[in-house]
């Protein structure tokens, strides 16, 4: 562990954290213009030890975002292009017979990296998807009875394309639940798009991107974020919000306890990125949609009214009273 918890001055730690995170964010923003919210959320998920699902139409920069994040941190990055014929072993790695030594030797797959970019994850067969998802949750790989731990930080950034239906295997809700957050890139603003034309026309900005943080630094950040204080009322509030999704008549399936965990964990990161060493309900409110929405199934009525889970969560968050002390 590079980060030592013997730092006594919490404020200094916090400043370091904000500083490092800002560097990463700036680095990514030099590649992707006008998406600071998305970038911030991405960094939040990274620091919350979570995984990110980016869902949007092709060409808005999903892969670019994943790559930029990976590139800005000086760490091993692997990219997997998911296709229907991709096998689980293509992700986890295989044990191959080494003729020289006469033994089976484990050849690590692309999952053995700090950041794994899974492109178009919904194109792979469910079997392959679940292989990746097991790694995401357990942070380990088991091949031929041997268990191999994955390194920290470990983050999967998966992208998927919502409009392409043929030849895709949509992630089941149980598997979507493993992702800490789902974000949509959205089209850039006209001004941002104009600037993108200028920048990308000349060169590939990704190539110019130099790492701004080391793995050890990121690990230290993650460690620092674990120390962010979550008061009892805020914990109760998180539970209230999640419980509200379970009771809402607009939702067939509410959020899982894992969702609560993810919500609070990412709220810690969110608070730390704001320079706070304590979580406030606003953190949870900001994160409720990206963290919860993809786990929910709208009821038939809500579907009939074209009410998306995002809207439902927005309304719920407005209704659940913010907690006071005691």
């Amino acid at each position, binding site marked *: 562990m590079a980060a030592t*918890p013997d*730092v*006594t*001055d*919490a404020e200094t*730690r916090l400043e370091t954290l904000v500083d490092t995170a800002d560097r990463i964010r700036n680095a990514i923003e030099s590649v992707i213009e006008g998406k600071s919210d998305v970038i911030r959320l991405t960094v939040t998920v990274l620091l919350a030890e979570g995984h990110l699902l980016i869902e949007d139409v092709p060409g808005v920069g999903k892969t670019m975002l994943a790559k930029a994040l990976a590139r800005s941190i000086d760490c091993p990055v692997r990219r997997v292009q998911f296709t229907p014929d991709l096998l689980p072993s293509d992700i986890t790695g295989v044990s191959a017979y080494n003729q020289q030594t006469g033994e089976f030797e484990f050849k690590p797959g692309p999952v053995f990296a700090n950041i794994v970019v899974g492109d178009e994850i919904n194109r792979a067969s469910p079997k392959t998807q679940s292989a990746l998802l097991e790694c995401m949750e357990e942070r380990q790989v088991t091949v031929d009875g041997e268990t191999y731990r994955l390194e920290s930080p470990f983050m999967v950034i998966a992208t998927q394309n919502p409009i392409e239906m043929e030849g895709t295997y949509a992630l089941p809700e149980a598997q979507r639940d493993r992702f800490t957050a789902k974000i949509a890139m959205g089209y850039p603003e006209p001004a941002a798009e104009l600037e993108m034309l200028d920048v990308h026309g000349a060169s590939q900005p990704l190539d110019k991107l130099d790492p701004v943080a080391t793995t050890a630094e990121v690990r230290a950040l993650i460690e*620092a974020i*674990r*120390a962010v*204080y979550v*008061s009892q*009322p*805020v914990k109760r509030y998180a539970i*209230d919000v999640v*419980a*509200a999704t379970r*009771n*809402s008549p607009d939702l067939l399936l509410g959020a899982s306890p894992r969702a609560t965990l993810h919500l609070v964990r990412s709220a810690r990161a969110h608070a730390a990125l704001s320079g*706070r*060493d*304590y*979580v*406030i*309900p*606003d953190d949870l*409110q900001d994160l409720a949609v990206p963290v919860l929405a993809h786990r929910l199934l709208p009821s038939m009525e809500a579907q009939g009214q074209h009410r998306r889970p995002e809207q439902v969560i927005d309304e*719920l*968050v*407005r*209704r*659940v*009273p*913010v*907690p*006071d*002390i005691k």
Partner: protein
Amino acid sequence: MRLPIAAGLATAAVSLTLYPLFEGGSWFWASMGAIVVTAAIGMGASRLAAPPWAAPPAMVLALGVYLTAAFTGSKAWIGFIPTKDSVMLLGELLGSGFDDIQRFAPPVPANTGITLLTAGGVGLMAVLVDLFTVRLRRAALAGLPLLALFTVPAAVLTDPISWPAFVIGAFGYIGLLVADGRERLGKWGRAVFVRRTRAVTTDAAPDTGRLALSGRRIGVTAIGLAVLLPALLPNLAPAPLFSFGVGNGLGPGGGNIGIPDAIAELGGELRQEANNTVLTYTSSDDQPRYLRIYSLDVFDGTKWTVNPLRGRPEDRVSEGPLPPAPGLDPATAVKRAETHIAISDDIRTLRFLPLPYPATQVAADGDWRADRNSLMVFSTDDEAAGLDYRVVTGEPQPTPEQLDLAAPEPGSSGRRYLDLPPGLDPRVAGLAQRVTEGATTPYQQAVKLQEWFTKSGAFTYSLKASGSGGDALSQFILTDRSGYCEQFASAMAVMARMLGIPAKVSIGFTGGTKIGDKWTVRTHDAHAWPELYFAGVGWLRFEPTPGGGAGQGTAQVPQYTLPVTPTASPSPGASPGASAGADDATGDSGPAPRNPREIDRDLGGVPIVADPGMPLLVKIAIGVAAALLILLIPAAVRLSARYRRRRAMDRPAATGPDPDGVLAVSGGTPSRTAPAVSADPPARGASAVEAAWAELCDMLIDFGRARRPGESPRALGRRVAETLSADPGTIASITAITSAEERRRYARTVDGPAPAAADLRRVRRTLAAAASRKRRLGAALAPLSTLLRLRALGEKALDGFDRLENIRLVAGRSRGGTGDAADDTAGNRAVTVRDVQGNGSSRERSLTGSRS
């Protein structure tokens, strides 16, 4: 099945209001027994599905049996079967009960007769209530017999019905309505509940405990308002809580009372064969005094009547001196005397006190009130019979010279004492002028008039004179010249009015006869006489009726009419014993300048409280001011809260230890466990932050920008700053408050920049500047934050009532459960049954009621 019980309970609850009518409680248990019997029969009839018409007769029969058993058991066969003897005895008891009720004023002794009467009455009411509620299914109509029961004490007693009695009675009736509503719904299916929606939807299970029938809430609220509102509202009459009955609430500050046809009674009494003693009295100067009962001031052409009297509560004679005698100038010499009057027990109903005029103070038991204009003293619920009371009088002792100077000006309000109906015989007026010819002053006119009646007019005294109908008056004056005191008094008063002297007719008794050391007044001393008004001395008695053996035996011409006609003297034989010095003005106390303080001496040191006599306008002003003050209570509460919070903010933080251990820590190790002790004290106590935040929230509510439930402090600050488009200073102030509150709530430590009172002031200024004038006024005078808090209190109270309801219903669960099993096997109402099996819903089950 519950309905007959509810009917019985309602009757029992309302019959509680009868309590103040009785002494002792036997009537209550007898009445409860009657109710139990009727309710039992009612339940039996319901259970056996007897036809509705059969139940009331059965109940009455059972009531009869019950009364027989309870009151005439010894005469009944095997204790309760009515026999001829027992029925006779019952009739006797009833008769004596009726007699007793006639005889006694409440509270009546609860003797056997009265108890029987009450129990029977309450029982019959119970039958009626049952008839309306259970048999006819018109529960609301059952309010009529209940109301009848309720009005008995209200009509009989002057004292207001106590509010607990009202509340119990009202709850009884509402319980009846609720039971009826349930029964009705039970026949149709499941009861429909009005659920008070809670803002939070995060409750894991639906909150069945808070379900409540909205009707019950309305009922509870209505009763609460009925009790509280009259108590809170400023009241012109000092009537506490409820003012039912005759003595209160009929007019502004007092009841009216009609007087009996005094004239007719007067004639009747004079013609009586028996000459019974009406009263006896002793007086401090041992002089006979005319005792006035009624003062009639309206003449309609045939008879004299009285304007409506007004006995205001503050004019109770027990409260202090009587109102001052009208027209009596304080400078006029008065002769004070104290008279002790004892009224016989056997007189007819008399609700007016015979008093010498003008009384200044009356000490009598009971609620006796004085009419301000006439100084008549009367009561709406006490009777004079048997009364023993003392009167202090201050009789004016005018000299003839003074009277000569006195103008008969009654003032503008006294014009009515000159009113005469049109159509009087003009010859009477002419005669009046002729008789008083030569008199230069009104006083001399009056004296001449009196002299004409008693002497020169050749009038004779006769009880056989025709009555006072039609033109009997002119006939008496012009032709007959024969009659008794009524005709004389009436004729003189009318003629005085014709001459422009205010006049009225008084009815009462003459001074009577001295027997032993007491003056005795008998039936034949009943008398009528005119009173004429002279400014400065007020109303003076004149005596046109001939006295002595050939006239009204004990009538006496007043002293002040004598000097002008020195030959006129009271009939020597009229007042045996004391008549010689009867009107001696130089009596023991003697004429003296009127000095109110000296009355004390006469009364032997009884303290006399001066009646301040607030005018109506002042009272209205006080009432309005009180109402305004009540309306301003929320504003005052708000102000005090603001002041309290400012104080909390100004308090130095070092003195107040933080209430929460977590907050007391600053910094510390970044581990997840609770940090250890901190070196720095918190910059400011959490209480200060809390106070600032509470004040900010209240301010926002007052100015219509209330915090929304899902809004965090930070979001609130952002919204307010945005919607106000506030200046940076205000934004900084808002942020200071919200971020401090945020830290207080969610951070490990509360330290950091603390909000100051100046921040609040700045925010308030900005809010006020952005608000409309109406809103600003509302924030100052009727702050919404306080009003909402009051409402929350009310809701809490209602929740409390709901909880009470739950207790009762849970107890009745098991019975409902057996019914469900039956239904289950029957295979119907599957939905309801499933509800019961799911936990927590059994309440609805039992609300569905019985299925008899």
